[in-house]
């Protein structure tokens, strides 16, 4: 098992070496990167908005129900919601959501190109398929993922606002006061740093599993599942490491 893990890891780094090579033509590369940014952003925006709003609502509700003591000021609810949403929930939960949404799309796209010999066609034209297909996705994720997480944070806090408005457990004033209390910009940078690293993991791991497929539709399905599991695992492990490094 350890041998298999190391073999996979070695192949992954060899793959990354091919990915990070100079594009054949910059004009085509930027065109492809813009297309990828559009596909990634538009393809994930609605689900991110829905999940974030629901998540923000539930967190606000749960926190309100927990904090009923008169010794704890009401603004604590807004403060707790903001901190948990910015620092953990949005970057991690939404990234895990993107592993399933974005990652499986990438594995399926590249895997089906492998199965139908489209990657071979690129190779025989003298084009580096790893760089041509994967590098624009990785670089696009560096821009799109942080943007999605910022949108996600906004909608999660907005979801909390709607809950406060609808339930009346605390006043809207106290909620907003809590959101703005003890605000640290570093928390946002921490969230965005995590997001960029998670974006790299999601796109590169998903692409790797699609790229190395040998066989047909059955292997494509297996690769998709493996890609999602491995990317999720690395997102969680890196979450722990980054938190330890950046917040300790």
């Amino acid at each position: 098992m350890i041998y298999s893990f190391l073999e996979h890891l070695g192949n992954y780094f060899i793959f990354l070496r091919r990915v990070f090579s100079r594009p054949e033509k910059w004009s085509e590369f930027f065109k492809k990167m813009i297309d990828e940014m559009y596909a990634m952003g538009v393809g994930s925006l609605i689900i991110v908005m829905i999940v974030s709003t629901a998540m923000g609502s539930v967190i606000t509700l749960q926190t309100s129900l927990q904090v009923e003591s008169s010794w704890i000021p009401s603004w604590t609810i807004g403060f707790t919601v903001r901190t948990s949403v910015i620092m953990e929930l949005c970057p991690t939960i939404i990234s895990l959501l993107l592993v399933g949404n974005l990652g499986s799309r990438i594995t399926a796209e590249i895997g089906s190109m492998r199965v139908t010999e489209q990657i071979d066609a690129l190779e025989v034209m003298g084009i580096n398929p790893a760089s041509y297909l994967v590098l624009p996705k990785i670089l696009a994720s560096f821009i799109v993922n942080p943007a999605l997480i910022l949108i996600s944070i906004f909608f999660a806090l907005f979801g909390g606002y709607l809950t406060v408005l609808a339930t009346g457990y605390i006043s809207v004033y106290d909620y907003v006061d809590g959101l703005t209390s003890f605000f640290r910009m570093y928390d946002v940078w921490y969230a965005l740093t995590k997001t960029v690293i998670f974006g790299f993991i999601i796109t590169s791991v998903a692409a790797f599993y699609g790229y190395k497929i040998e066989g047909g539709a059955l292997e494509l399905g297996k690769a998709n599942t493996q890609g999602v599991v491995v990317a999720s695992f690395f997102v969680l492990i890196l979450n722990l490491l980054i938190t330890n490094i950046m917040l300790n």
Partner: protein
Amino acid sequence: MIVVENVKKSFGTKEVLHNINITFEKGKVNLVIGRSGSGKTVLMKCLIGLLSPTSGAIYYDNKDFHHMSFGDQKKLRMDMGVVFQGSALFDSLTIEENVMFPLNMLTNQSQQEKLDRVNHCLQRVDLINTNQLYPSELSGGMKKRAAIARAIAINPKYLFCDEPNSGLDPKTSLIIDELITGITHEYNMTTVVNTHDLNSVITIGETIAFIKDGTLEWHGTKDQVLVSDNESLNDFIYAQPITQMIRPHVK
């Protein structure tokens, strides 16, 4: 001209090509025939550089492909056009974008020049008014023709076709065969076609190499293929009832 010299290819301990020696001549349609699993596709993949031979050499006009620098290999690849068995057109691109793809990536031509070349190639393969269609909107035969158009877009010196007739009806197969022959003679290319389609064998095979179990079993022309004394070749050629019926007349 392509010269294959003592090529062996192994996967692990299993050798699938045993000491192959063939010359594919310029301006001719050179067929490689054999049963499924005989090693045709492995040989084709070695020829186009998707696999490296375990030993031996492949010379493109006296240049050893597998022992040249990466840059030289890349330059040589620009002289190769490949038609894959499943066409391998890019799903997300229209037919026009597919044919224009190698021009976009490998040349610095203006948009108008590229468009003219694309239209010329599509016209040559008789695919007019398909520019804005996607591969999924085309029939199998049309996809093959679009793949041929893409393969010839950069004016290659060498054309490789892996089972261009597989999955096509006999009439469409004839059209594809005529197209490959016509293009080969028109552009004076070295064309290598992997096939087990007997129509192709007896109509377009200007040179024919028969591979059995990874060994070159027989080499000749379309005029010799039906009257050969080679038992393995005859087993392959006269395997179908229809060819068995014509065998007495051929003799």
